[in-house]
């Protein structure tokens, strides 16, 4: 403990300089208050520190359960040491750790954007920062899949080992005095118990895993990935990934949307949303046959899905296979559900087309 306290006087000067650089006003008041307080402050320093330290230990809570669990037993797929050295670095400008961190992750995922491009999509002037939900939204706006990880250190490191930089939110200060900060995890070393980040102005910040866990825990263990469509996070859950793909769909061309859904089907072949998603994406590209194949499979896997039958009916009608189309449309209507009105509409349209009434009305 004594060793730790030794550099305090020199650190005070350093702190002043730093404070003045960061915020001139706060810095000045800091100098004044230090001059006033100098005498008593140093006399009681050692007492104050020991009292303060024990108070702080009590206030902070010292447990880092995830790090302890990780260092004793971790996933077999977790390599002992990883560093993604090629991930680009953007030093953050003032208040811009969100855009800077996200730009690093987006670049790694193949989107050519700078922090300056992201600022208007992310930064909130009134809050001097960026919100988590907008980090996800801005990822989608730039054509990448945004995936929020489970609050597990193990999962975070598995994704890094799989080659993906992970954007994390940290509360660098204390729960009752938060200092929110985004950084990018690019590596770790289990033997040394360290994690490697691109953070603020530091291209390679090495932190003990325990310190990282403290800062990460205070931010609700929040972490996200930005992946090119077609790539599924190694730790993804079925529902989480498919929801992320649906949210991305409107921001990307339909070929890419098809790739994102097809990737889901590779891992979860029976997922209805992803199956219909591939069909809709193929249909949007004008490929009726490929769309039909997807919907056919969807009706086999999920014979109770009105949407699968409705969309199948439409593709069959497009091919003028009216008897089959009518059967599918009737089935869609009879199954009911939230989209029954749409199914009814499809059925009417097919009836009109198949009986040739449309020719007379022309």
């Amino acid at each position: 403990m004594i060793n730790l306290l030794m550099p305090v006087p020199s650190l005070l000067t350093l702190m002043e300089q730093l404070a003045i650089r960061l915020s001139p006003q706060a810095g000045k008041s800091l100098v004044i208050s230090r001059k006033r307080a100098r005498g008593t402050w140093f006399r009681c320093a050692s007492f104050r520190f020991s009292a303060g330290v024990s108070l702080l230990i009590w206030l902070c809570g010292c447990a880092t359960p995830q790090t302890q669990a990780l260092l004793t037993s971790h996933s077999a797929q977790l390599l002992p040491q990883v560093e993604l050295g090629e991930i680009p670095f953007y030093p953050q400008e003032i208040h811009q750790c969100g855009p800077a961190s996200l730009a690093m992750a987006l670049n790694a995922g193949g989107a050519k954007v700078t922090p300056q491009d992201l600022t208007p999509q992310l930064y909130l002037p009134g809050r001097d920062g960026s919100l988590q939900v907008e980090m996800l939204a801005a990822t989608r706006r730039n054509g990448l899949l945004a995936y929020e990880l489970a609050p597990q250190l193990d999962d975070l490191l598995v994704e890094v080992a799989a080659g993906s930089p992970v954007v994390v939110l940290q509360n660098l200060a204390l729960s009752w005095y938060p200092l929110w900060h985004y950084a990018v995890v690019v590596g770790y070393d289990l033997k040394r118990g360290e994690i490697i980040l691109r953070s603020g102005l530091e291209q390679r910040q090495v932190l003990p895993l325990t310190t990282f866990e403290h800062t990460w825990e205070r931010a609700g263990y929040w972490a996200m990935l930005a992946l090119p469509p077609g790539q599924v996070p190694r730790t993804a859950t079925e529902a989480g990934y498919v929801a992320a793909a649906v949210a991305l769909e409107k921001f990307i061309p339909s070929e890419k949307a098809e790739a994102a859904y097809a990737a889901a089907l590779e891992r979860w072949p029976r997922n209805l949303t992803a199956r219909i998603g591939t069909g809709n994406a193929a249909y949007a590209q004008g490929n009726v046959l490929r769309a039909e194949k997807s919907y056919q499979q969807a009706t086999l896997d999920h014979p109770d899905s009105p949407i699968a039958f409705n969309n199948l009916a439409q593709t069959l009608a497009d091919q003028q296979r009216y008897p089959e189309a009518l059967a599918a449309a009737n089935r869609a209507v009879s199954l009911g559900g939230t989209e029954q009105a749409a199914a009814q509409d499809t059925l009417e349209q097919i009836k009109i087309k198949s009986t040739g009434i449309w020719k007379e009305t022309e």
Partner: protein
Amino acid sequence: MNSRFMRMTSRLLIVSVLSLGLPFQYAQAGMVSTDKVATSAQSQSERERIRTFLDREDVRKELQAQGIDTDAAKARVSALTDEEVQKVAGKLDKMPAGGDIIGILFTIFIVLLVTDILGFTKVFSFTRTAK
């Protein structure tokens, strides 16, 4: 008379609100879009849809209150999913917003310095954590 007028107006509003909030993704008639598959699985009721729409309006206003201009706020809200909108609606000023270190008070500075050295926090780049 009055209540009938009100009822008509509210019906009209509901329809227009729904058509605004849930644009059709496919121009082709007859196709049900992929997001509907997900929402129908959750059997989202009309009431919830309207609530989501109103929440979206709230978030847009909150974004504008935080210094975003109208058009940008619209674009930013439309990029959020329904779940994300629900998460932040009404508490945008209290949600964590990652920024950086600025204007830390003197006392808190000392506190954070010590917690930094102890490895509970990581505010300052010049501290070396004791292991």
